[in-house]
């Protein structure tokens, strides 16, 4: 295996211009994040709202421009690409969004939504593209007879399947999935998670899974990075991080997940950021397991 993704010291600052009512404010949403993802791996990026996990994913695809840092994607240095080269590179890395209601154009038919990327990248003839769209529909478990329907005619789970078909249309090697099931009903979430696992195996995808649901991350991801206030505070094999969390924040996060087993007596751990050095660098706490302590 080799590294497909290498993110080095990624920083994203948001600044708000001063107004008569407020001063200039600068927020470091992502503050020096580095990680490596091997080809074919499922890497989890977890954290609470405002931790910078979504911003990290969006910077990688340059949906927002990073402030500084480097993203090596195969042989490409993504942040230095010209916009034309970037457009070409995006064929190979795609995003699946959280809200299946907001991320599909309501005025486009489902088939056209999936085909759009193929048209933009001038793939094949019209017939080729339509065949490909049918194939993608079947791949994600949608009925190809529903190609002509509009997004509102689909359920939430089906819409997320459309979003996945659109992301897969150009045969990317990397998918960044930002909370792809958190807007779905519990009984539907498992279907979509299974689909992710099946497709990843069949298509040899590398998957970055951004999520706040630790149970899902534990199930799906081989490795995980825990983010807190723009930084990675702990990273390692999912099993190691969940079994032996080294950072106090990771411990607090894990203990806060309500366990549906009525017999479980997990003690709650709380995290006090004032007693922890938030600037501490990551250091090795076990094989392939690092923590900012």
């Amino acid at each position, binding site marked *: 295996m080799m590294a497909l993704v290498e993110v080095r010291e990624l920083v994203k600052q948001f600044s708000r211009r001063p107004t008569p009512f407020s001063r200039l404010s600068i927020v470091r949403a992502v503050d020096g994040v580095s990680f490596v993802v091997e080809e074919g791996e499922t890497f989890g990026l977890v954290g609470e709202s405002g931790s910078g996990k979504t911003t990290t994913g969006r910077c990688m695809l340059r949906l927002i421009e990073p402030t500084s840092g480097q993203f090596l994607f195969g042989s490409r240095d993504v942040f230095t690409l010209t916009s034309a080269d970037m457009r070409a590179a995006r064929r190979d890395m795609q995003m699946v969004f959280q809200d299946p209601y907001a991320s599909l154009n309501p005025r486009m038919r489902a088939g056209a939504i999936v085909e759009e990327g193929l048209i933009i990248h001038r793939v094949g003839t019209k017939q080729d593209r339509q065949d490909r769209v049918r194939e993608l529909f079947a791949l994600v478990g949608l009925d190809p007879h529903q190609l002509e329907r509009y997004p509102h005619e689909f359920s939430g789970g089906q819409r997320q399947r459309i979003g996945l078909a659109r992301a897969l249309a150009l045969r990317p090697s990397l998918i960044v999935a930002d909370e792809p099931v958190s807007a779905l009903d519990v009984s539907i979430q*498992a279907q979509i998670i299974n689909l992710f*696992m099946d497709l990843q195996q069949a298509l040899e995808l590398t998957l970055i899974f951004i999520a706040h649901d*630790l149970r899902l991350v534990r199930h799906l991801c*081989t490795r995980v990075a825990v983010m807190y206030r723009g930084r990675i505070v702990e990273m390692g094999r999912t099993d190691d991080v969940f079994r032996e969390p080294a950072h106090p924040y990771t411990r607090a996060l894990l203990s806060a997940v309500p366990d549906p087993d*009525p*017999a479980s007596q997990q003690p709650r751990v709380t995290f006090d950021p004032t007693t922890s050095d938030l600037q501490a660098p990551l250091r090795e706490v076990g094989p392939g397991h690092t923590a900012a302590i």
Partner: protein
Amino acid sequence: MSTVPSPLLLDVRGLTTEFVSAREGAVRVVRAVDGVSLHLARGETLGLVGESGCGKSVTALSIIRLVQPPGRITAGAIIFEGRDLTALGETEMQRVRGARIGFVFQEPMTALNPVFTIGDQIAESLVVHGLAARGPARARAVELLEAVRIPEPGKRAGDYPHQLSGGMRQRALIAAAISCRPSLLIADEPTTALDVTIQAEILDLLREMRAQFGLALLLITHDLGVVAHLADRVAVMYAGRIVEEGPTAAVLSKPAHPYTRGLLASLPGAAPGTRLKAIPGSVPDLSELPAGCAFSPRCADREQRCDVCPPEPTSLTPDHAVRCYLHVKVG
């Protein structure tokens, strides 16, 4: 589902709420809540669990009579503190709502009024219900903010909702809900919009408030983990009906309805990296329900009779009941 002789705080019997819509000339009736019976003793917590569109929120809105037209309660009784709320006029209902039954909604930002301070909004309900004059009400609001563990309550009382974080807003909303010392608190997905560590804090707070104020709690959620954490009993809803009801430990450890079993089995937890046991299909459209059991199209244990007529509740133990033919002996 079962009748309990004890003096119940809330006893909902056969509640049915329908929405009528006329589209393309045809009148459609959607029965969002279909013959729901549930009860709460004083100080007890009932978890009402289900997915979106199962009718759990409409059940809550029906209990406080806040279902908006074209929705309407068409059958059933809601006995609360000995009175049938369905028979009360709007003025009398206003004296119950907020004063005797408090409620906490999912999204604190929309439940709070953005142009009034937190303190004013809490004081408001005390004044409206005639429990305090303006001055003392304001002081009481600060006390309540302190009770829900908001730091510097005196200062925070002057804050507007947007100045507070999501967790603090939810705390403020809980303070407002308990301000008039209600005997029942209805919490509709109170932690769904919150981060997991904040969720844990709010659940702790609800537990604490319940003990301190002797509240009965109707907790509406889709999260079985939250229920396991907080509820004495749990009722599982599917397509407008309660399909299983019983003590939390019994329902979660020995689920009887295939839907409850499916929900629990679909949760990630066992063997990482393996396929999850998903429930096939999707949540049904309430306007096109099958003639029999609404879950049967997705059910692995489906029998012929399931498609003919929906099963009636069957008692497994005196306090654990299920609506499923699996537990009804043939003949």
